[in-house]
């Protein structure tokens, strides 16, 4: 699909404003944390991954609840939010699917958190490996959680591509960019959690940071490539080129070059590549990645309106 809707602005003001812009940015964080935690839990010898999974799950839960509050607050009739969950007559609506996915993920995450805290209490506040006491349910739950998280990571593209106000969301790379920014947010959060807990388990944290550094550099590279090819795909028709100009030069140029490219890609890449023996470099790089990923998601929402 080509984002040719850029020329169409049938309403004086777009229907969706700041609250939903923040929502579409924030909803990437819980998805990324869950996907990264799932990936980390099977890494041999990375003991800090257990801490990342537990604390990350709490952060993901908080972000999910925050995103849900934003979604409800944006409704003109918030008291009727339940209709998004109870009505199944239009599953062709990505918002209907997304709302149900959020509810499902919140439910699954609550069960996983309960199980983790219960195991931890039983072990006397020690971090318990995720595989401990695995049953059929505890085996299936993480997979369901990953599936819901993957869906939530890319569903903003399907919502926004249906709106004339966010033409970039209909471009060829939008879903991939939403997925990669969610993963970047998850990796950055994992690194920040590991750095914050560094004193308790220096060896485990060191291994976690080395793994996180390699993963973050890899995903940053993929992210840069995706942005480059997205730019190439937008170089076709005049409406698409107008969108590209808006991203690169006009109203959003400073956001793209400053927040996405410089702070979101260049600073973290340099920090992780050349200053990785310093904890501060990890913190600055992770913070930069969070800012860059958030700015990218915002641009897909806002450019063209």
């Amino acid at each position: 699909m080509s984002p040719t809707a850029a020329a169409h602005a049938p309403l004086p003001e777009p229907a969706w404003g700041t609250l939903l812009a923040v929502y579409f940015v924030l909803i990437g964080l819980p998805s990324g944390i869950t996907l990264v935690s799932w990936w980390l839990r099977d890494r041999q010898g990375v003991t800090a991954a257990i801490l990342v999974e537990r604390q990350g799950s709490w952060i993901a839960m908080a972000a999910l609840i925050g995103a849900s509050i934003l979604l409800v607050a944006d409704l003109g009739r918030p008291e009727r939010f339940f209709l998004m969950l109870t009505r199944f007559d239009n599953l062709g609506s990505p918002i209907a699917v997304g709302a149900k996915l959020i509810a499902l993920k919140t439910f699954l995450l609550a069960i996983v958190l309960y199980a983790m805290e219960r195991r931890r209490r039983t072990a006397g506040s020690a971090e318990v490996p995720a595989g401990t006491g695995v049953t059929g349910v505890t085996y299936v739950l993480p997979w369901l959680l990953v599936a819901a998280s993957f869906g939530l990571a890319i569903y903003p593209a399907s919502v926004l591509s249906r709106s004339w106000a966010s033409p970039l969301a209909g471009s060829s790379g939008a879903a991939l960019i939403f997925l990669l920014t969610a993963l970047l947010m998850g990796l950055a959060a994992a690194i920040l959690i590991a750095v914050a807990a560094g004193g308790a388990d220096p060896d485990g944290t060191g291994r976690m940071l080395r793994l996180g550094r390699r993963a973050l550099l890899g995903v940053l590279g993929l992210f840069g490539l995706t942005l480059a090819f997205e730019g190439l795909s937008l170089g076709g028709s005049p409406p698409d080129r107008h969108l590209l100009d808006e991203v690169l030069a006009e109203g959003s140029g400073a956001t793209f070059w400053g927040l996405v490219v410089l702070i979101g890609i260049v600073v973290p890449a340099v920090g992780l590549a050349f200053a990785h023996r310093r904890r501060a470099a990890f913190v600055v790089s992770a913070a930069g990645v969070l800012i860059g990923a958030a700015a990218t998601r915002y641009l897909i929402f806002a450019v063209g309106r």
Partner: protein
Amino acid sequence: MTRLAMLIDLNTCIGCHACSVACKAEFDVPLGAFRDTVKYVEAGSFPAVTRHFIPVLCNQCEDAPCLNACPTGAVVRMDGGEVMIDEGDCNLNKFCMAACPYGAIYIDDDKGAAQKCTFCHHRTAEGRQPACVDACPTNCRIFGDLDDPQTEIAQKAAAHETRVWKEDQETGPRVLYIDPRNALSHIADDGVQVDASAELPGAGA
């Protein structure tokens, strides 16, 4: 099967806004919002200048983006093909507004729901004409069943070349235009709702 539609002859519209006023009165449409209005468009350069009057309203699309987008099933299609909003099921998530390429949907704060033209379903169900059609002094609007060859709209549509607004959106509009001067191309990027941001405070009162 009934396929209700409206045919608007731009040759005979005089831009009097009788349709807009009748619609406002019929539905108590709030200030600043429109179910139906008339666009004034100047085209050409002096001395070959002309002004087009183009009535616009919800196109009751056969492949309606608003209906496909609504997450609560509040946007429904009636037997005649009219697309309507069930106020009881609307929670004002505004996805219909974000999806509609015609800007035909607005928020009615008093009713607490999204609203738009219904082809005056409450009137047509009683065999009456929509309020805008009744009010038009030049009969530039014809309403009826497009699939019934005996109706005036079917005969006039067959006798003239008709166009639809924003044909590139491929939504299958049920509002057809006789537009020999290509007026619709001038509002290809426009919508039903009017940008009143440049007006002085109180100007709309």
